[in-house]
Structures are given as structure tokens and as C-alpha cells.
């Protein structure tokens, strides 16, 4: 893959907003987060939380303001940004002919994980999320809650200094929300920067080092 700059988990979004034609998706908003921090974006449906996360992840160009990751413009075309950001924004497209553990081994291998222990890492992650017994299932054989846990496993199976999550608690029962909270907490404690949209007050209270209220355009 060649030499790629390693970016620190410094997330800076200054006055970022998005307008398409006459429709404002996101009013200018500031977000700032450093390594070891977990910033929770809060706001009603349609306020632009997902749009903000997409801008921070470099998937969408802001109409106003600037967003940077580790001091570089947040642009997914930049390999360094891609290497720094792991994101769960919507449903990732999975391979219908690979099992859950195959997916994790594939991701791990493409990020240079040691082949000899790739299976163990994948199984350990599935175990943390309580779906290790589903390791040989195909993605279309999962319930909606299990599918959400699998998507989280996909996101957490790759290395990243910045983790972006869009409502990680959705479709999960209370017990599983605690499991996810613990995993996010550990990732933050290990030095990653987490920015996530969340509607769960308990999860927000237990994880957020800072809360950003996203104001709806209308």
C-alpha cells in the first residue's frame, strides 16, 4: 500500500454546515475532540447528526466550514484519513458468501494483522459482543439486533485513531447496550477519539466526555 502518514485522533470541525439546493441539512456546527475523548452528538431526528458525522469522516464535502482529522482536511480520498477513521454510518455492504468470522479475518488481513492469530482476534471480538456462537453464519441469517452487533464488530475489527458511530445503540436490548458501551469505553481509554450520535441518555451519561447539541435547521 506504500507509506501512509499516521494521523493523530484530533477531530476539528469548525462551522461545518451542509446545504443542498434550497434544503439545509446541517446548520453550521463546531465539534472538537482529542485522543481519549468521546463526544456525543445529540439532537432530534433530522437535525443533521449523520450529515455531521459524514463530513467529519470525509465522506461528504461541507458547504460551509472546515473539518480536519489530525490536522489534514477530512477527505476520504486521502489514504491517511482512510487509515485513521473507522466509521459505522448506515449499513455496510457485506459479502453474501462470507461468514461473520470470514469478514473479520478479511478486514484484519487487509490491515496487516498477523495471519497466524487473525482467527483468534476475530473470534475474541465476536465473543465480546456476545455473538461468537454465530461465527459461521452468513450475514443474511442474522436478526436485526445481531446484525447491528456484527456491524459494530466490523467497525471495531480495523485499527483506527478516530471512531465515528451513528446511533450504535439502535436495535439493541439493554444488556447489549452495556456491552457496546464497555467496548467503546475501552477504545476511548486506549487513546482513540470517538464521535458518536446517540439517543440513549444512559449511554451518553456513561461515555460522553462532552456533548454537542446539534440544532435542527427547521
Amino acid at each position, binding site marked *: 500500500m506504500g507509506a501512509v502518514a499516521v494521523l493523530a485522533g484530533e477531530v476539528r470541525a469548525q462551522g461545518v454546515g451542509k446545504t443542498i439546493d434550497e434544503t439545509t441539512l446541517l446548520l453550521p456546527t463546531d465539534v472538537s475532540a482529542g485522543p481519549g475523548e468521546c463526544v456525543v452528538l445529540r439532537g432530534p431526528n433530522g437535525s443533521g447528526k449523520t450529515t455531521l458525522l459524514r463530513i467529519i469522516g470525509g465522506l461528504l464535502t461541507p458547504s460551509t466550514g472546515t473539518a480536519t482529522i489530525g490536522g489534514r482536511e477530512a477527505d476520504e*480520498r486521502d489514504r491517511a484519513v482512510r487509515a485513521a477513521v473507522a466509521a459505522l*454510518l448506515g449499513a455496510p455492504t457485506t*459479502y453474501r458468501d462470507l461468514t461473520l468470522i*470470514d469478514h473479520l479475518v478479511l*478486514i484484519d*488481513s*487487509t490491515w496487516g494483522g*498477523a*495471519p497466524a492469530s487473525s482467527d483468534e482476534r476475530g473470534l475474541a471480538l465476536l465473543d465480546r459482543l456476545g455473538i461468537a456462537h454465530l461465527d459461521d453464519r452468513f450475514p443474511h441469517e442474522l436478526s436485526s439486533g445481531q446484525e447491528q452487533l456484527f456491524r459494530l464488530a466490523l*467497525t471495531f475489527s480495523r485499527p483506527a485513531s478516530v471512531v465515528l458511530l451513528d446511533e450504535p445503540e439502535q436495535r439493541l436490548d439493554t444488556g447489549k447496550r452495556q456491552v457496546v458501551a464497555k467496548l467503546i469505553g475501552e477504545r476511548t481509554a486506549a487513546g482513540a477519539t470517538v464521535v458518536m450520535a446517540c439517543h440513549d441518555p444512559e449511554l451518553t451519561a456513561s461515555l460522553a466526555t462532552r456533548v454537542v447539541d446539534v440544532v435542527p435547521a427547521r
Partner: protein
Amino acid sequence: MSEREHPADETAYDSVEDSPPSVDEVDYDDHDLLGQADWVIGGEAARKARQQGLYAGYVLFLGALVYGVPIVQTVFRTTDATSLGEQLRSPLAIALLLASVAALLGAVVFAGRFRGPVVPPMPWIDLVLPAPLDRALALRRWWRYAAIGGLFVGALGGLTIGGGLAFAHLGGVVTVVVTTVAGTALGVLATRLWLWSQVRSWPGPDRRLSLLWRVPDALRELHSESLRTHSANTSTMAGSALTGNLRTARLALTRPVRHGRTARLRAGRPFTVLVRRDVLGLRRTPGAFLSGLGLTLLGGAIVTWAFTQPAAPSIAATIGLLPLYLGFGAWAEGLRLQADNVGTPSLLGAGEVTEAVAHVTVPTVLTVVVLGGWVAVAAALGSLPVSALLSLWLVLVLLVSGNVLAAFRGSPTFVLRPQTVALWYAVPALTVVVLGSLVAVLTKNGSYTGLSVLSWLVYAVLAWAVSRVRRLTYLHRD
């Protein structure tokens, strides 16, 4: 609407002495009921629309006569009719012909599982079929559309081939008659197998092969839920095709993978593990592997013959390139899945071009093996010019490029009209077939200057394909 009495008013309580006295019977006039339904739904306009369908068939027939004859005459022209005749009568050619027919019938049976020949509109299924009508009568119209279509296409295909053989001085009037009859019979058989497959797509008491010649019984076996599913599949496929969302159509057409789960993806270096992913995918979807193999074997044989045999007519390469292209595509699911993922946050650590190259590795290697096999056969038979090998290399580059272009075609950005969308879909396949056919013509004519110019064009298509991968991967930001 004409005033008609409700059939219930015509109820005739059975008074025949030898009937069971405890069972009442209601006599329905099926034709009358269907006539009323037709009138309510479409009125005079529906009748006229059906007549326009007949007119379209008439225009198609005239068009085939006016344009088909000179085209057939041109493409079947050969410099060596005697050699061509011997080759077409060889056991290998006959085996390939039989394999093609078997593949066609297999494809029809496959299609019938998702979209059979009898697919009435949803309101008809919901509002008319629940009536106690003879289902064979209520569904007969849609069956007739398909049956006449099959008959027409089969007869026209047979006539074209027979006419071509006659133009190439390989047969006379009898050949034309025989191929036309054979084509018609094949069209009829294919349509009936299609219906049989539709019947079998839903559980029921009678699924025997004898339904092939008991069409009314086959129509009565069609369950309303099955008809609804087939109608919904049609809408899904048509809608996704029109909007350029082929993933939805693919998922609707393919069965979910459920076996081979004990095999594991072995970890490794990024490129290697992506190649292993595709190998594992083909192991878990043997249908895709076998259909790819069948198409590539067939296309590879025809293309190799076209490049190595001077007697082969110009049309041979054009005919062979399409199954070769489709066979390569059947093995390239990994490439399409990569394209499906564009616009989502990156999960894999490989770059987009590296990933695409990894995903074309398996289909390319398999195609090389198949083409290599046919080249070996050609060499054993004593005819293998070096120019043929170079031309086959260009065909391989075209196959890779065409399939990358097809996977990364994105979504149409123009005003959606069926004709323009169809053309938009056809661009990758057309690129392969047109340029591949040109390679064949120049190779046969020994025009090496033209061939070297064309080879640059082929590499330009490859560069276009690579740029499509990059462009589509990052298009979503704008």
C-alpha cells in the same frame, strides 16, 4: 360497461338425479366473468393495446426480413465453404451445439424460478383471480403472450441460421426448412419448460414433467402467492434495472448462500486474502462457478475457433464473445461487491485499484485456463497461428476491462428512458463484442497495422476501466 346479469343470477341448482343430492353446485360462465373483468379494467383501450402488440410483432417480422437477410448474408460469408462444412459437422461442433441448447434450456428453467412466463398485473391477481373462475382461463392470456413470443423467436432464430448456412453454400431449401422447424420446436419447448419451472417454484401436488404438454393443468397449478411473488420480482427487477441499482436485482435473483460454512477464509497478505475470498465465494456458490464454466467453455471454444480457423465466418467471434464475457462476469462477484460498497466508510485496508485487481485475478486465471485448453486443442489439430495468440490476449484484456466497467458503471445520470438505460447497460458488453469482433476481422485479414492500432484502443479501454474504479469510488463526496 354493458349491462350484464351477475353470474350468481344465472345459478342453476343441480337437479340431475345421479348427482349427490347434498352438494349444491353453482354454474359460472367463466368467459362472461372474464369479459366483464376486462371491460371494467381496461375497456376499449385494453383491446386496442392488445392489437398493437400484434402490430409490433408484424413490424418486427418485416424488419427481420428487410435488415436480417443482408446481415445474415454478410456475417456467414466464408472463404472456404468446404472446410467450414467439415468443421460444422465435426463431433466437437455438434457437442457444442448440444451444449448451447442445453445451456439455453437450463437458463430458462433457472429464470422460471423467479420470473415465469405467466405474470399478470398485481390488481388482476388480487381482484380477479380470487373469483371462482377456471384459473387456466384466467391466466391463459399471459401464457399466450409468452408462448407466441417463444414460437416467434425460435422460428426466426432457426430461419436466420438456416438462411446463413444457405448463403454460405452449406445447405439448401431443405436446410432452411429443417432449421426453422427445429428452432420453432426449441422455442415451444423452452417456453413450456419456463412455465414448468414457474409451477415448480411453489409447493403443490402436481409438479411432474408431464405438465409440459398439459398446459391448462400447469396454469391451474399456479398458486396466487407464487404469482404475486413473480409479479413482485418483475417489478423489483424492472425498477432496479431502470434506476441502475443492479444490486437489488442481483439479490432478488440469487438464492441466499447457506452451505460451505465450515470452510474458513485463511488470513494472509491483503492481496492474497482478497483472492482467497473470491475462491471461497465460488466454492460456496457452485451455481455461479458452474454457469461461469459453461459459458466460458462455450464462448472460449467459438472464439478460439474464430481466431485459429481461416474457414470460420466473421460472425463466429461476435457470437462467442458474449458468452465469454458473461462467463467471466459469473466468476467476478467480488468485483461487483467492491463496487456495491463505494460510498460507505472504508472497512478494508487495501486501495481501490489493488482491491479491483485482486478481484479480477480469479476470473482471469479461470478464463486463461479455459482459453488455454481450447488453444491446446487447436494446436493439436494443427492450426495455431501466432497472430491468433496475440488476438486472444487482446480479447482477455477486453474481458477484464469490460467486466470492470460493468461492475463500476454506477448509476445513470441522464433522464431515465428505457432505450437510453438499455444502451447504458449495454456499453461494457458492446465494447467487448464490437472491439473483439474487430480484432477477429483484422486477424483473419492479416492486417497487422490495423491490429496494432486496435491494440492501443484495447489498452485505452483498460485505462478507462481503471479510471472508472477511481472515479466511482470517490464520486460520492461531490
